[in-house]
């Protein structure tokens, strides 16, 4: 301390040490993010999860087998029979291309991993990347300490884990990384004004566009922030560099993605960015004029421009409004509209409302998904205002908007999670910094106070550095991160040593005991968070949903592998070109696992087609047979949980079949299926319900299992117990009855009718009338 040279060397050494330490902490955070997501592999197996990942897996298989050009041109004739689907043009290719590239690199190094393995582990790998990106973003906002805390929080935030466990091979897995990284590069550009980062930002944005439809969040949030900066008088050339290249390059690049194409300039989701683009240019121009004109001349110019500009603006606005108004949905797609008006979907689009992840979340789900972060976020917001910079105002804006969106759809909780982690990271880091500083001050108050008082700026910083170093040692037992943070904080003060800051620092000192107690509480809070996250990763979010397990009374594990049993049966024991009809939930799995053509799948792009299947399922047997036959369907697959008590089966989804079917074909009326406003299958059920195809296929011969037909999901005895199928025959039922597959019986032979002509005069006429009635019901005629 006496020798300034020595002290300098010590500080540089400590910086080097700090860098290495933070590097290793980051590495460990990455490892943590990866490992915490492997519960699903350890508890179950290395397998693709749920529904959408199966489609992505299938696309990746196609990509690795046939190459990129065939992938772009892929017309898939195995789904949406007879319409088919242009996969290359309707899919966000980011995830698929990423996994395909990883697979290709590994295979060119002669590491023979299967496509499935690569797909399973893509999400954990990218969550490690995402936590590193969070570090970078938060570091730009509030320094490295906050960055490390935020990265550690994000590595295990349950909301993100739910979408990125090993096997959850979905767009969000890579998109969250792309989202955070884009934000980081935006902030980085904003802080440095470097065109290099601006270009990288556009590229990151391009990757995001490739990966997920959620890119519209970026292209609306960044303009909002730019506008906020302009309005609050924070316009600078750095802001211009951060924004203008992003819009130009980003839009051009986004238009390259087939699924976006001209939507990047045509739909209203993108209009905000163009509007702000114009505004920022006007502002930039004004600043430029202001710089070259004298104040008097400037006033004249302003009045001139404003009057002309108003006229032009009005004209442009009028044209824009006319354009937007001319399109049917006012230029907004249904999903985006439901973002703005949470009740929109349930009112107008049952198919969106039928997906559980499109429902608004409940309060417990916030606690489940972001846990203690919910309490830390407000503190983080306050910390962001002390002092408010461009970067911190961006994070504040980010958290505010994402809180709104997460309130609309459960699914968008995922966008909230990184923001909450950044905020909580800042909050934790700042509060640790305050408390540790107080402790330090108290500890050294006796010995070093005179020096601090008398010393000039440089010596006081040296003291601060040393204090930081000592704090590091004392705090080793608690945690390393906060100490690093405090050091960085000190560093920030070193850069701008101002009298005000010093005074502030002095004022922020808390009592010694209170600080220790508060640190203990914070550590406890962190521990609670960790315990919750590990529990969520291990128990709540690791089930692959195609394999179910239950524990018997003696502790033995019972596996319900019925879905794969049925898909394997279909794939080995039916013809390759047979068409399988099922509710759309199972479409992706059927194409991927059984390799059979399906009528509808989880893509849900054609409401009419889904309504057709819904109509068939809610029609009586004969009418359903005719609908299915007209679609060349050979097998019908239903999921039935009544025997083992699997709740998300087709009977529980039946209301959506009726609702979606009835939405397009009015002869399906929901009240026909309801008794006392409920879908019932017991003896109180309506006759329409008891005669519809879904009821019959689910409960066919069910009564023979226990003698009375007790449905364990609905907890009742079924209404109609003994019945026969006339147009369908059971060809396969899985071990626990969870999947039942029926075959359409071939139509009756006509020759028989001819030979018995005289006798069947009467009956044939009745059948004819019946048939004509049935054909009317069939939407395909």
């Amino acid at each position, binding site marked *: 301390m006496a020798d300034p040279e020595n002290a300098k060397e010590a500080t540089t050494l400590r910086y080097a040490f700090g860098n290495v330490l933070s590097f290793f902490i980051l590495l460990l955070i990455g490892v943590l993010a990866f490992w915490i997501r492997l519960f699903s592999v350890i508890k179950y197996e290395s*397998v693709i999860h749920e529904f959408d990942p199966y489609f992505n897996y299938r696309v990746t298989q196609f990509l690795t087998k046939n190459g990129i050009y065939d992938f772009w041109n892929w017309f898939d004739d195995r789904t949406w029979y007879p319409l088919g689907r242009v996969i290359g043009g309707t899919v966000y290719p980011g995830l698929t291309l990423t996994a395909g590239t990883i697979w290709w690199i590994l295979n060119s190094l002669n590491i023979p991993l299967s496509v499935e393995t690569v797909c399973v582990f893509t999400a954990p790998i990218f969550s490690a990347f995402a936590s590193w990106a969070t570090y970078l973003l938060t570091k730009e906002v509030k320094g490295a300490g906050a960055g490390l805390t935020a990265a550690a929080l994000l590595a295990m935030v349950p909301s993100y884990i739910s979408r990125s466990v090993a096997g959850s091979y979905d767009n969000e897995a890579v998109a969250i990384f792309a989202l955070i990284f884009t934000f980081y590069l935006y902030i980085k550009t904003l802080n440095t004004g470097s065109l290099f980062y601006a270009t990288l930002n556009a590229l990151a944005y391009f990757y995001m566009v490739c990966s997920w439809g959620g890119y519209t969040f970026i292209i609306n949030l960044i303009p909002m922030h730019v506008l906020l900066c302009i309005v609050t008088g924070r316009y600078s050339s750095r802001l211009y560099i951060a924004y203008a290249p992003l819009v130009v390059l980003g839009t051009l690049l986004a238009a390259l993605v087939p699924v976006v194409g001209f939507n990047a300039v045509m739909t209203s989701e993108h209009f905000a960015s163009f509007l702000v683009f114009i505004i920022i240019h006007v502002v930039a121009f004004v600043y430029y004029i202001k710089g070259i004109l004298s104040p008097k001349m400037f006033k004249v110019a302003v009045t001139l421009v404003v009057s002309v500009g108003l006229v032009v603006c009005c004209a442009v606005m009028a044209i824009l409004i006319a354009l937007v108004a001319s399109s049917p949905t006012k230029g907004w797609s249904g999903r985006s509209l439901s973002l703005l008006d949470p009740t929109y979907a349930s009112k107008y689009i049952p198919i969106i409302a039928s997906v559980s992840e499109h429902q608004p979340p409940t309060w417990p789900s916030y606690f489940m998904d972001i846990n203690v972060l919910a309490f830390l976020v407000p503190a983080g917001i306050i910390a962001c205002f002390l002092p408010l910079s461009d970067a911190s105002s961006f994070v504040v804006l980010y958290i505010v908007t994402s809180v709104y969106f997460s309130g609309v759809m459960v699914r968008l909780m995922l966008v909230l999670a990184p923001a909450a982690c950044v905020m909580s990271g800042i909050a934790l880091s700042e509060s640790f910094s305050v408390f540790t500083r107080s402790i330090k001050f108290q500890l050294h108050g006796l010995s070093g106070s005179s020096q601090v008082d008398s010393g000039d700026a440089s010596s006081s910083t040296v003291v601060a550095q040393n204090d930081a170093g000592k704090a590091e040692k004392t705090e080793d037992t608690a945690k390393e991160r906060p100490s690093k943070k405090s050091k960085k904080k000190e560093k920030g003060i070193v850069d701008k040593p101002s009298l005000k800051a010093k005074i502030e620092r002095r004022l922020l000192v808390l009592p010694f005991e209170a600080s220790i107690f508060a640190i203990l509480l914070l550590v406890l809070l962190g521990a609670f968070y960790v315990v919750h996250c590990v529990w969520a990763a291990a128990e709540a979010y690791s089930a692959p949903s195609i394999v179910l397990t239950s524990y018997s009374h003696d502790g033995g594990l019972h596996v319900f592998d019925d879905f*794969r049993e049925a*898909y*394997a049966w279909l794939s*080995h024991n039916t013809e390759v070109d047979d068409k399988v009809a099922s509710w759309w939930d199972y479409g992706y799995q059927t194409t991927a696992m059984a390799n059979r053509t399906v009528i509808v799948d989880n893509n849900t792009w054609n409401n009419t087609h889904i309504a057709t299947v819904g109509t068939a399922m809610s029609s009586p047997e004969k009418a359903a047979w005719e609908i299915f036959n007209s679609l060349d369907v050979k097998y019908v697959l239903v999921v039935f949980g009544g025997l083992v008590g699997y709740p998300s089966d087709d009977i529980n989804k039946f209301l959506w079949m009726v609702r979606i079917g009835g939405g397009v074909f009015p002869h399906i009326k929901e009240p026909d299926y309801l008794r006392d406003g409920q879908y019932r299958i017991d003896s109180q059920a309506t006759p329409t319900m008891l005669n519809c195809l879904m009821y019959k296929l689910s409960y066919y011969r069910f009564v023979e299992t226990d003698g009375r037909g007790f449905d364990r999901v609905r907890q009742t005895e079924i209404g109609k117990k003994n019945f026969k199928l006339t147009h369908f*025959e059971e060809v*396969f039922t899985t071990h626990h009855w969870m999947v039942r597959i029926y075959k359409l019986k071939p139509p009756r032979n006509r020759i028989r009718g001819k030979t018995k002509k005289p006798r069947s005069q009467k009956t044939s006429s009745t059948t004819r009338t019946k048939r004509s009635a049935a054909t009317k019901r069939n939407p395909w005629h």
Partner: protein
Amino acid sequence: MEALLGARLTLALSIFAFLSLLTTSFSQQIQILNAERRIDLTSHIVKVFLTLKVENTGTAPANEVLLAFPPTQVDHLAVVKAKAATGRRKKRTYITLDVKPTELPDAPNGAKYFIISLLNPLNSGETATLEVLYMLTHSLEPFPAEISQSEPQLVYYHDSAIILSPYLIKQQTTFIKTPTSKVESFTRVEPTNRVSTELKYGPYEDRTPYSFSPIIVHFENNNPFAVVEELVREVEISHWGNLQITEHYKLVHAGARHKGVFSRVEYQSRPSHSGISSFKHLLARLPPRVHSVYYRDEIGNISSSHLRTDYRKSELEIEPRYPLFGGWKATFVIGYGLPLQDFLFESSDGKRYLNFSFGCPLAETVVDKLTIKVVLPEGSKDPSIVVPFPVEQHLETKYSYLDVVGRTVLVLEKKNVVPEHNSPFQVYYTFNQMFVLAEPLMLVSAFFFFFVACVAYLHIDLSIHKPSQHFAKF
């Protein structure tokens, strides 16, 4: 040169002898005093035990005995083995004899022949006892060809009541053993009688060569007709101490095709009546000390399997995802690791050899096409193979973890494989132990150069414009 000449000479001589044999006709020279045939129809692999008492009635010593088969049987013939019995009663010993397929120009109705080479030439007037075992696959024809879930499986077996032979047979009897006493019908060729599960044809006396009397037995056989259409076994040798085996199965139930509905409720509630010809379990016999066993298919792990290990053998009981009814198929993969020292040995000439079992580990199954790929470690040379029966073979190259030159793969292919083929085969190769270290060294050097590059990058200043020495102010 001399050896070659000698070989040619013997060849010429043998051809001459062969031709002379033909001209003089075998039946003149050899006759069969007594023939007893036992046909075992209990499983879907037909096993025939033939005991022949052969006498040389000619003047010249006989070296060979011919077996004749109708052309329909030859296609399904999986194994023909012959043993010579010597000694009497309790001291009886058996010596395995060489059996080879052969062609004869004047075979009646396209009959095919196998030639048994005797160890000692049979002098005139001498007799010898031969035990012949042959197995037929796909020889039980389901009739009716399609059955429903509740019906038992009935099959036809076609054969001849009289043994097809190029020799005169003095006396012969045929016993046919059926799995149950439920025999729908059988052709009578007097004297014929049936006692519970056994049908007896004969004895017939003095049948001339090539006598044939077709018979059909129609009986119930509910044993699993498990047929592996294609089996690819990959045996990968790692000199780090592990032998990794991966087996890809394409399984089919080759019995009467399943017709109409499959009712789970009937299958579960009445297991003894419903789907009795179907099967849901298979037993794989694996070598002892097996580890890391997995059983999966292309869509993931199949949870229904049990492994029992003891010091002599391991038994893996597997259940396909669904019970297999007639005509239903399933594919799956079984993989396991074995300690290398149990299977890899060093021969006296410094070569290493792998001693591993051929055939399919599944009990009582027929493999239509078996491919065994032996993946030798990278850098091994001069592969050669010793198999106790003829197989097709060729070489391939496989690239696995971080390979540069690739691993040599010996590919053996054989059609129509039955459990009798589960006999050991040997693969010889030379391998330098240093190659074991190639891949770790490669990795180490790659990381080393990476770190060197990092260090170099951190110490190189690539900026064009040097900012004035700001840090001096510090």
